[in-house]
C-alpha cells in the first residue's frame, strides 16, 4: 500500500515536493526581484536607466496590444525560418550522409561556413531584400540550418557496426533498412540539432530586426531603449523569451512523442 501511494501522489503533494526540493532556488528568485525593486529607490537609479519590476508590469500591460502584435510578427519570422531550415536541412543531411560525392564537396564547404558567424550576413540580406518579412526569415533560416544539417549528417552516419551487419544479414533492401533501422536510430542525434537550432532561432530574428525593420519585438526593444523607456524594452525581452520557450517546448514535446525510448527523454524507472 505504501508503494501505491508514492506512485499516485496528488497534484498538491507533487507541488509540495517541488517546493521542498527547490525552496532555495525559489527564495533566491524572489530575493533577486525584491533586491531589484528596492535598489532602484535605495541607490537613486534614474528611471530612464532602469525601472523596478513592478513598473515594468504596469507599463507593459498598458502597451499589450502592440506587444502582442509585434510578438506575432517576430514569432512568424522565427517559426517560418525554423521550419524552412528543417525542411531543407534534413533531406540534405540525409543525402550528404549517403552520397560520397556530396560528402567530398558540400560537406567540407558546410563545415567551413559553420565557422562564419551567420548573423554577420544579416545587414547584406536586409540591403538586398529590404525591410520585409523575407530577409528575417532567411536570417533565422541561416542560423538554424547549419546545426540541423551537421547533426543530421552525423546522425545518419553513426549507425553501429552491429546493426549494419544485422541489416545486411537479413537481406533487407535499402528502403526497408532505412525505415526500420536507420531512421529511428538517427532521430536522437537529429533532435540535438533541432534543439540547438530552436535555441538560436529567436536570437536570429531579434538581431535581424535590430538591423533593419519597422515592426517586431527586436524593433520594439530598440525603439523603446532609444526613447529612454527601459521598462518597455524589458517587456519586449520578456515576450521574445516567451517565443523561444514556446518553440523549445514544442520541440521537446515532439521529442517525447517521437523517441520516448531514448535516454535523454525517459525518466528514471524506479
Amino acid at each position: 500500500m505504501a508503494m501505491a501511494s508514492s506512485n499516485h501522489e496528488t497534484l498538491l503533494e507533487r507541488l509540495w515536493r517541488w517546493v521542498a526540493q527547490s525552496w532555495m532556488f525559489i527564495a533566491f528568485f524572489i530575493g533577486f526581484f525584491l533586491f531589484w525593486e528596492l535598489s532602484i529607490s535605495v541607490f537613486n537609479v534614474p528611471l530612464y536607466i532602469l525601472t523596478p519590476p513592478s513598473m515594468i508590469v504596469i507599463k507593459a500591460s498598458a502597451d499589450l496590444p502592440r506587444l502582442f502584435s509585434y510578438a506575432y510578427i517576430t514569432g512568424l519570422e522565427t517559426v517560418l525560418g525554423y521550419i524552412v531550415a528543417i525542411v531543407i536541412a534534413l533531406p540534405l543531411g540525409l543525402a550528404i550522409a549517403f552520397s560520397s560525392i556530396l560528402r567530398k564537396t558540400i560537406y567540407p564547404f558546410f563545415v567551413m561556413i559553420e565557422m562564419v558567424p551567420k548573423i554577420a550576413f544579416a545587414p547584406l540580406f536586409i540591403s538586398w531584400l529590404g525591410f520585409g518579412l523575407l530577409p528575417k526569415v532567411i536570417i533565422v533560416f541561416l542560423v538554424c540550418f547549419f546545426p540541423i544539417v551537421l547533426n543530421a549528417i552525423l546522425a545518419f552516419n553513426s549507425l553501429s557496426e552491429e546493426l549494419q551487419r544485422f541489416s545486411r544479414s537479413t537481406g533487407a533492401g535499402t528502403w526497408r533498412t532505412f525505415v526500420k533501422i536507420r531512421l529511428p536510430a538517427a532521430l536522437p542525434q537529429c533532435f540535438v540539432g533541432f534543439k540547438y537550432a530552436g535555441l538560436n532561432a529567436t536570437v536570429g530574428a531579434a538581431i535581424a530586426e535590430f538591423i533593419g525593420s519597422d515592426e517586431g519585438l527586436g524593433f520594439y526593444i530598440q525603439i523603446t531603449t532609444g526613447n529612454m523607456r527601459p521598462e518597455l524594452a524589458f517587456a519586449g525581452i520578456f515576450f521574445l523569451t516567451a517565443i523561444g520557450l514556446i518553440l523549445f517546448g514544442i520541440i521537446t514535446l515532439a521529442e517525447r512523442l517521437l523517441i520516448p525510448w531514448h535516454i535523454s527523454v525517459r525518466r528514471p524507472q524506479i
Partner: protein
Amino acid sequence: MKSLIELKGVSKTYGAGVSAVHAFGPVSLDIAEGEFISFLGPSGCGKSTLMLMIAGLLEVSEGAIRLGGADVCGPQTDIGIMFQDNTLVPWRSVRGNVELQLEMRGISIESQRDHVTSLLKSVALEDFASRFPFELSGGMQQRAAFCQAMVHDPKIVLLDEPLGKLDAMTREHIRADLQRLWMKTRPTVVFVTHSIEEAVQLSSKVAVITPRPGRIETVINIDLPFPRDLAIKGSAEFTGHVRHIQEIFHGYGVI
C-alpha cells in the same frame, strides 16, 4: 553426417604490400550438420573474423567458404547471427525486436505471432514481451537477442561471444538455456568464445585456435551426453578435456 560448412584454406589479411597484417589462417575445417562447434581462442586470434567471414559479412583474403555446397560471396541471409554487442534496438519492445528480424525479411508477423510467443516462453521472457531493452537485465537482454537471432528458424546459427559481457552466474544460467534451445531443433551452431569451460560444456566439438595469426591447433570431440548438467561438469572426462585445452594454451604462453 554430411558437411554443412566447409572452410578451405581460409585466411584473412588486412591491408596490402609491406603494411599488410596477416590476421587469420589459413584454416581448413568441415562442420557437419547439427554440430555445435566452438571456436575457442584468446582475444585477438581472429575467431570473430572467421565468424564474420562465414556469415559473408567480411571477405576472405584467400581460400573459400561453402555453406550447404554453395560458395559464400556476400552476406548470407538464411543464417542466424548474434554479435558481441546485441542488436536489440532501443525503440522496440522485446517482442518488437524479435519481430524486427521477420519484418526485415518481409515475413508477415501475423502468421508468426504464436511462434514468437512460444520462443519467448522458452527463454522465460513471456512476461517481458512488452518491455523495452533498457528495462531488462543484461542476461534478459541476451535471451531476447537469442530469440531475435533464431526466430526465422535458421539451419546455421553463428554466435560471437554472446555471453561475454555477463556476470559469471548469469552466464552459467544462460548457458543452460542455450543448450536446451539447441537440443530442441539441433541447428548447426558456430559458437565463438574464450572460455574453455563454456566451450567444453556446450559443444559437440571444440576447435582450439592459436594466438594471432589464428590457426586451428586441434579439433576435440567432446563425447559427453547432453544436457550437460552439474554432474557431468564434475566428471573426470569433462575436467580432463578442460585440463587438456588449458595445457595447449599454456604451451602458447596464453595462460
